[in-house]
């Protein structure tokens, strides 16, 4: 088996986790995919040195470091592009899907309004599926700190969406 095949066999099962993390570290689908690719290429270069351990956490760490070093300045303020699936409801339950799209866009905006430490913690735990302990090791902070950031971030998201819905229904 060639080295790239061994690498892909080991890492592609974790693509969804890395993709979800990248989506919340960048505002744009294209940038997220570039970040995922750069993560995989960096991981491939280091694959020979990777000795055991959790592949997903290893990839997440690379993605996080890559995002921080390359994309931090790309953070948008107001010009978030709409989600690719927003506003494209299917023929059935059009209204419901349109509303879901609105909620989703509001959530994406809300996530970007959170302090970075909360956004990253939520991306790691709720989106990439890491445990609080794994996230804490990646972020070099106590597990309790990650849990507190996630808790505050989740509450802020819930309140934001409640406000958006209230304003929409008013």
């Amino acid at each position, binding site marked *: 088996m*060639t*080295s*790239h095949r061994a*690498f*892909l066999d080991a890492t*592609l099962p974790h*693509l*969804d986790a*890395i*993709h*979800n993390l990248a*989506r*919340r570290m960048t505002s744009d689908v*294209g940038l997220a*995919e*570039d970040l*995922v*690719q750069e993560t*995989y*290429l960096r991981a*491939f*270069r280091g694959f020979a040195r990777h000795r055991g351990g959790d592949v997903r956490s290893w990839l997440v760490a690379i993605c996080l470091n890559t995002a921080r070093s390359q994309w931090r300045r790309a953070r948008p303020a107001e010009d978030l592009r709409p989600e690719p699936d927003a506003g494209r409801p299917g023929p059935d339950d059009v209204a419901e899907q349109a509303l879901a799209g609105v909620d*989703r866009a509001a*959530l*994406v905006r809300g*996530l970007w309004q959170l302090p970075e430490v909360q956004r990253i913690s*939520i991306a790691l735990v*709720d*989106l990439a599926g890491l445990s*609080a302990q794994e996230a804490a090791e990646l972020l070099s902070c106590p597990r*309790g700190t990650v*849990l*507190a950031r996630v*808790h*505050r*971030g*989740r*509450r*802020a*998201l*819930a*309140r934001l*969406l409640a406000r958006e819905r209230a304003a929409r229904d008013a």
Partner: protein
Amino acid sequence: MLDDATIIAYLEGELDARAAAAVDDHLLDCDDCWAAVKEDREGRQLAEGMRETASPRLRDRLRMAVEAADGRRAARRRRRVLPLGGAIVVVATGLLLSRPATEPRRDPEAIDAVVRLARAQSPAAMTVTRYRVRDIQVVVARSDRPFAMPGGARPTGPGADAPWVASRGEVTLLCFSRPRPALLVSTASPRALTDAARSLGLA
């Protein structure tokens, strides 16, 4: 009112039964703590609802990129070996060239990816054909829809319809949007692939 650490431990299921029961009792009477629990649960559900599945296109893109990176690495290794073992390589190459090939060379994965993509489409949406033009193998995918330009590709001329070319490792992609979208994939150089496209009437 409970502190955040207690509420978080409650939500994480880390309190013993007695402590959890005490929090349950407290939540019946404390609106602020109940709001904290409710918002955490809602926020978690909202955040998890944002999870997306990576597209097959991204998966194929990664395969291509890693395959290309592997090709570049192999090429670097070959270049490093050459000064030391150049004579041996030259003799070995001569021997190989003097013998008929007994095993066909496997396509790079980038080419396989195009073929796989094409096979996944309905026949009307995309067709794929292999050609041999002079000494080079070319895979041509044709579609009614334009092919998206990948990262790192460059247009070969002005205008939105200009052909674009992308090289990754040993693989070159050349794409035309007119008269009908066509994507050429080969291990040939961009120049040789352009010549091949002319020979095939695509350029």
